[in-house]
């Protein structure tokens, strides 16, 4: 019995290291509960993924899941012009060259943009996901979210790095 207790202590899975990709994709959905869209477009909660390589992780993560009490639908597109109604647009780092065109295209459409492109928040994106010291971190451009009429709960702003005008607050 002592041996089993020892082994159970040794093998206890309380603590885990997760892949950057899976954490990033989970967080895209997690932040939704802190955000209020101007109007609810549809019955489903739609995340559109623009030109990405880890699509199977999106499928496995959000299969049969709900966000804001709505079933999650994941759409994949490889060209911004194919974008249909969506709540969140995930812009993968493969789009970094075309970022300004993408952001221009969705301006005024009340779409919450998320990306891990370097400098995304400063370049006019809404929420940037980045990694530092083996932790995932968020950077939110509050000006852009307000321009697009999003309301963001203060509890999210407290744990994110917030860009406001020319200033940055942890």
């Amino acid at each position, binding site marked *: 019995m002592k041996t089993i207790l020892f082994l159970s202590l040794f093998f206890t899975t309380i603590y885990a*290291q997760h892949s950057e990709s899976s954490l990033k994709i989970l967080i895209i959905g*997690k932040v939704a509960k802190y955000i209020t869209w101007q109007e609810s477009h549809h019955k489903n909660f739609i995340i559109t993924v623009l030109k990405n390589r880890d699509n199977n992780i999106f499928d496995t993560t959000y299969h049969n899941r709900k966000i804001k009490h709505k079933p999650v639908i994941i759409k994949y597109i490889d060209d911004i012009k194919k974008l249909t109604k969506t709540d969140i647009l995930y812009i993968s780092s493969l789009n970094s060259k075309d970022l300004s065109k993408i952001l221009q295209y969705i301006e005024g459409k009340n779409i919450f943009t998320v990306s891990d492109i370097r400098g995304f928040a*400063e370049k006019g994106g809404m929420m940037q996901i980045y990694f530092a010291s083996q*932790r*995932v*971190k968020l950077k939110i451009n509050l000006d852009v979210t307000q321009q697009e009429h999003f309301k963001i709960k203060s509890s999210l702003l407290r*744990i994110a790095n917030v860009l406001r005008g020319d200033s940055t607050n942890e």
Partner: protein
Amino acid sequence: MNKLLNKITLSTLLIISQTVQADDDIFNESLEDLLSTETELKADIGSRNGATNILESRSPIDVITHQQIQTSNLTSLTDILRYFVAGFNAPETSVADGSDHIRTFTLRGMAPDQILVLLNGKRVHTSALLHVNGTIGRGSSNVDLDTIIPSSIEKIEILRDGAAAQYGSDAIAGVINIILKGANNKNIFAIHSGKRVKGDGENVVADSFITIPLRYDGFVNLSLQMKSQKPTNRAGEDKRLKNPRVTTHVGIPDSQNFLATLNTEIAQFNNLLIYSNATLNYRDSKASAFFRPSDHSEQTSLLYPDGFLPLLDAKILDYAFTLGVNGEFGDEIFWDLSNVYGYNRINYYVTNSMNYSLGASSPTSFYNGSLSFAQNTTNLDLKKDYNQLKIAGGLEYRYESYQIEAGDKASYIDGGSQGFPGYSEESDIDKDRYSYALYLDTTYLFHEGLSLEGAIRYENYSDFGSTTNLKLASDYKILKNILLRTSISTGFRAPSLAQSNYSNIATFSGVRSGTFQPYAPISQELGAKALKAEKSQHFTIGTVYKLTSSTTITIDYFLTDVNDKIILSDPQTLTQEQQLKYNVEKISCFTNAVDTRTYGIDIKLNKNFIFQNSNALDVTFWYNYNKNRILNNITKENSFEQIDRIENGQPKHNIKLLSKYTTQKITYTLNLNAFSDYAQVKENHRYWFKKQLITDVDISYKARKDIILSLGSNNIFNSMPNRWDGLSTQYYGYDSIKPYSRYSPFGYSGAYYYLNLSIEF
């Protein structure tokens, strides 16, 4: 038997249930919890095709994080690697000329120049120093790791595999890639003070890390360090004196260091990234030679009636500067163009000495000349992913130069300054060479859990010709949590410019002996040949077993054969005729003499616990076994010391047990480091030095969120190596000036106690 089966079944069920639960739980975790979750450890080393999770890499990789560096409270990079990496050896030598001032290090018992060191993925220049005394690493030049400030480091990646087919020369025992801190760090100021158990060796270090954020996650990071290390002395009594007393300094040298490390990235809106880093180190380090008792001659007595202790002062300047730019063109083709310039110069001065041949009119202080080495490396890298196929390749051009500058005439004529004779005009040299390389590295991902990597590199050196090297590596997940990995490769190490061009003549105990270039007339007369590259073959096979998501075991076997390893030959006594002709009695010269085989195993276990109250316990167990053998027949009578240094001079077994228990306010660290016995040859006889256990402890108290006060000790129980067993000569022996072996993996200065204050802002 039934009881045992029940235990195994119950434990297995427990593991399975908890693993499944872990996978399911993550979706239900809060955003706050996800943001505090530790992500996978990734490394950029081992493949040119992008960073990989170290538990899914095709070759064994270890990572030391900046949190580990910070909590270790160590102020030297060499010590940090020795602290965390089993099989990494960095002895502290003394009375060994330049080797006292630039620490040598080995991995798996292989030579210091068989380890490639990179900074942010770019080759770091070696020191100009060639270890020519009987230290570990004799005959090689190594990178001076202590030129980089620990607080500037984000992580250290250690590839335990041959990788010359990817990175070129020197990547034989492994590759150490030092990654500097990037964006999103805090400013740090730290002050460290400590001393040895005997009250000497006071060490005071002031350290700062300053970061300035720039647009688009760009940054300028500047680290500065001032370090004052007072000497230790563990010398025995000098039996040559009528009334024996301690006359010589045997221990850590007296050194003052200034270091600066800069890392900057300037990102443009169009994804163009301009990056740069620089390191600077100025070191003034003083150590002694053996005491010279008074010979009661008229000339000597006038200057030093009671004898004298010559002091060698090495003033070392080391700097490097990298400038690069990268971006993307066409259809997701990533490019990177960079240039790295590195320079190391050692100026030698001898004080409190004399040149016997000049009698009472001899100066007592000398400039003994300098060694310098410069390296400039230009790379163009390209990378492209085609779904499952990743291709990376590039071009490299490297220019190297090596100089020896003669010292004052009085420092080298007729025997030269006592303690360390200066470099003469005959040694004065300025040599250079260039090389270019083409390389390709491709990875094909058949499916998740099966990949194959192939790398090829062609390299042409202006001095010894060309070489092509290959590597094949694969990983295969036989189960979701069990990965098998293997690699096979060839490699090489180009002879260094120092090995090809170093020469010096010294007089010790009345014997005039010299190191000559392989192309010098005397060397040619004795049959020396121009140096060629060392060639190597590598094989590794291993497994990664993720018992649970918090428990990992890695087991890796390695085998490395090196042909034509370059060594500095033992001094060869010349014939009377040759002695008259060349004015020297013994000569040594670098030669491709040795074929070696190194094999062994690394077993590593990592376990992390987080308890209900958020306290955490991290435990790492790491066992390294390495055996080095010489395969070819070289004259044992002439080279017994050299052979034995390679085969038995370093511990074959090393166990590290690293543990850290973290509460909200206090972090407790307890590390055990055990290594097996090792031997040193003296007077043609092998002397063994016993296994040792070194214990390190540290208690760090978080006074506020941003202020940490630490109290700790390295080698708290003052474990000392045993003295020479049965040897008693004038200089070496249990009752002599040097009572301990210079091979001792943890030196012989004893326990070190310290206080450290760190402030983040």
